[in-house]
């Protein structure tokens, strides 16, 4: 049970002794600060050509997709951009919905991937995943996307054991006075986007509408308006923001029952953040409220109301140059109201939960070439019946092998909490031979325990070649799984109802490697080759569980090539290829039939004509070569679908 999860005493001693150890002097820095200008002009500097130093030095597998890449790629959704990243699996399962996983199985309810917008978590607490189609952000409003592969537990907390995607929005002062874009095409959504900014206040509006795929007749319309105001009070920086969003979908097929219905979703969020520096120290605080009302037609579950309140304070203290400690305290409050449903039952109609966490993270530059980072996080989440609090820990180390090559390694331990679906709710999962199969929550679940080890290398090899490689091994204990051997059978006349409960009886291991090789060929062409190798294996943890065990429903490997070619100042071209081999999608339940995704290529591209310094006309395509390829993803679709290729035009103009 939970009280077994105690922090190892040795690790605590190491952390404390490290924090309070004498800090070595940085005589060379102090000397530099006192040099005069003529002497400074003679000092040779260490620099990392073209790449932001703090990203290069991160002791984690990290990829950043920046504004320039977003603009040139022609990508129309955030998952389209994520597909380019090694270690990230992306599967578009309908014209509207996409499933994203990092170093994990491709499944709809992916609880181990945390998605943030400007540092704030956006996820559906009922299933603990992100519904990408309901995320109130369009690529036009994104400044950059930071993808951290591997365990982010000590830094980011709950539900980030396989990775973190942090979407950073554009600030008012980064925008022109106004900009506008419009686009549409064959099997592509019609999109309109408008932004205006004074430098302090930014307003943005987005609308898109889609007619669905030949294989999946559901259609959708999404829209939102958002605003952000940046100001300053004395030495305090302040941001105020908010969004109103909604979407409509018609003819959505229920995931298991096949019932076709419509859905309406709408919501709002609002945030405030303040920050200031005290010399080299920094304090920041933010508050966030998120509320939405959703009909999950895929589960025939209309009218679900969910809210999140989040408050966080951070303080970053520099003890001496190169020795920094960050403290954070965070409180979240969740509220879900689920009205009576036809195929979904819950123990409580109104569910409230709260999460408190404390984080301490210390970074020390031991020498000019070696940095160590120790993280410790305490979390207490009321969703757990035995709520004693949990400690996550991490140790990260980085070392410059030479001026342009960094090696890093890390060990992480973190926990993954059950969702309401796993702990509180019964949902109809299949109807077969006069039998209703329900997946039923278990309030006595333990959190999953994750341990992972990673090693990576980042290097500027010269001649415009950049290598970023990492390998990992992860181990999960107490994995939460639907247990077909833990049954409750109820006879209802000619029909039978079988409840299958979630239990903690599986252990899994994952291992793999990722590599990205960026090459500049002349000034005009840049290409990134991405290689991913992934494997996952699951076994019984104890003798209680005797059901089927799924090993992996993600491809064994993935190959991507992402190229950008600049013909002239007026014309450039972006082309992206992906290949994934066929893979099984077996579901670990008694009633499931084996499912399979065909091997497939994908090609996305965009040719961009900058007809004036203010305007760009783009012609793009997406999912080329995918036509006729069948894929089927657990928990998402009742039957295999064929992905539809699309072609589109897009016009952008700014003032």
């Amino acid at each position, binding site marked *: 049970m939970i009280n077994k999860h105690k922090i190892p005493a040795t690790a605590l001693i190491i952390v404390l002794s490290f924090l309070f150890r004498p800090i070595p002097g940085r005589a060379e820095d102090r000397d*530099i600060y006192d040099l005069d200008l003529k002497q400074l002009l003679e000092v040779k500097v260490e620099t990392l050509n073209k790449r932001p130093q703090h990203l290069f030095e991160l002791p984690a597998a990290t990829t950043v997709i920046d504004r320039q890449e977003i603009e040139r790629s022609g990508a129309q959704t955030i998952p389209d951009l994520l597909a380019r990243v090694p270690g990230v699996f992306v599967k578009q399962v309908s014209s509207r919905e996409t499933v994203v996983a990092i170093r994990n199985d491709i499944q709809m309810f992916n609880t181990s991937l945390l998605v943030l917008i400007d540092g704030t978590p956006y996820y559906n607490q009922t299933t603990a995943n992100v519904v990408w189609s309901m995320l109130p952000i369009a690529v036009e409003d994104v400044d950059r996307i930071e993808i951290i592969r591997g365990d982010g537990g000590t830094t980011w907390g709950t539900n980030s054991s396989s990775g973190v995607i942090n979407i950073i929005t554009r600030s008012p002062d980064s925008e022109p006075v106004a900009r506008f874009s419009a686009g549409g095409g064959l099997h592509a959504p019609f999109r309109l986007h408008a932004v205006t900014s004074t430098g302090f206040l930014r307003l943005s509006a987005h609308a898109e509408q889609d007619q669905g795929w030949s294989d999946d007749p559901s259609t959708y319309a999404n829209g939102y308006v958002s605003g952000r105001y940046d100001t300053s009070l004395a030495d305090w920086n302040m941001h105020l923001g908010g969004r109103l969003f909604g979407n409509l979908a018609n003819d959505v097929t229920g995931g298991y029952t096949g019932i076709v219905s419509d859905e309406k979703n709408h919501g709002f969020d609002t945030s405030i953040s303040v920050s200031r520096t005290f010399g080299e120290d920094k304090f920041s605080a933010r508050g966030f409220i998120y509320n939405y009302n959703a009909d999950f037609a895929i589960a025939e579950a209309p009218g679900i109301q969910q809210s999140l309140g989040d408050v966080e304070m951070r303080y970053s203290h520099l003890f001496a140059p190169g020795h*920094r400690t960050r403290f954070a305290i965070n409180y979240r409050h969740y509220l879900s109201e689920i009205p009576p449903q036809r195929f979904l039952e819950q123990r409580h109609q109104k569910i409230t939960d709260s999460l408190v966490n404390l984080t301490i993270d210390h970074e020390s530059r031991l020498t000019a070439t070696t940095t160590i980072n120790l993280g410790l996080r305490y979390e207490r989440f009321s969703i757990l019946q035995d709520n004693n609090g949990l400690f996550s820990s991490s140790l990260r180390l980085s070392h410059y092998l030479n001026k342009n090559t960094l090696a890093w390694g890390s060990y992480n331990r973190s926990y993954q909490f059950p969702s309401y679906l796993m702990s509180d709710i019964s949902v109809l999962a299949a109807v077969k031979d006069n039998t209703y199969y329900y997946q039923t929550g278990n309030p006595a679940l333990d959190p999953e325990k994750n341990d992972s080890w990673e090693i990576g290398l980042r290097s500027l090899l010269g001649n415009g070649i950049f290598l970023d490689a990492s390998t990992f091994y992860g181990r999960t204990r107490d994995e939460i799984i639907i247990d077909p051997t833990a049954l409750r059978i109820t006879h209802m006349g000619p029909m039978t109802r079988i409840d299958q409960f979630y239990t903690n009886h599986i252990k899994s291991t994952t291992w793999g490697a990722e590599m990205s090789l960026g090459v500049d060929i002349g000034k005009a062409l840049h290409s990134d080759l991405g290689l991913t190798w992934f494997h996952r294996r699951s076994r019984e943890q104890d003798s209680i569980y005797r059901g089927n065990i799924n090993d992996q429903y993600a491809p064994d490997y993935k190959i991507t090539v992402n190229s950008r070619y600049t013909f002239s100042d007026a014309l450039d071209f972006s082309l992206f290829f992906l290949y994934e081999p066929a893979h099984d999608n077996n579901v670990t339940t008694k009633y499931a039939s084996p499912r399979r995704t065909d091997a497939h290529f994908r090609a996305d591209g965009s040719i961009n004509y900058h007809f004036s310094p203010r305007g760009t006309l783009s012609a793009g395509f997406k999912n080329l070569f995918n036509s006729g390829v069948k894929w089927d993803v657990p928990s998402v679709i009742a039957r295999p679908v064929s992905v539809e290729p699309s072609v589109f035009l897009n016009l952008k103009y700014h003032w």
Partner: protein
Amino acid sequence: MKIPVCPIIIAIILLLTVLAGASVVPAEVGPEYTVKAAMVRNFAKFTRWPEDSVSKQKKKGMCLCLMGDEAILASFAGIGGKTVKDRTIVLKWVDNLAGLGDCDLLFVTRETRTNMARIMEAVKGRPVLTIGETSEFTRAGGMITFFLKQGRIRFRINPDAVRRSGLKLSSSLLELATIVHPSIGESEQ
């Protein structure tokens, strides 16, 4: 008996890390932003602010605003609290245009997302010594721009932009700089 593997691994790694710390970096090599921070302090020494602006700001010291990559805060910490002409350098992290109100110096890193023209507009006509690192910064009307040459830091000065702000730079500083006039190019002194 079960051996606690994880703490032992952590302890071994920590020990190896501390032992690895014995390596020494050559003294003549400095981290890029430490050198730039020291140069910014020197720029302040060679700059004369208008009398009225100094008298207003004197109580608060000399406000050095930083914009862009937060990672540079640690490098600039070494000049925070040091004095220049009896004024104490006070560091201020700025993440939006509204925060530029009381800056005496402004350093904009290459990582900033902020539109350069908007930054220049926000400090236009005020005695703020603007320092940057990109050609976009120079084109937008920035005063001093760092660049790298043969592994060493050099800087360009745009005297027209300095003049318009009401600041005066010492000839000793101009002698060490590459002078640039965005409309007609640059010339070595």
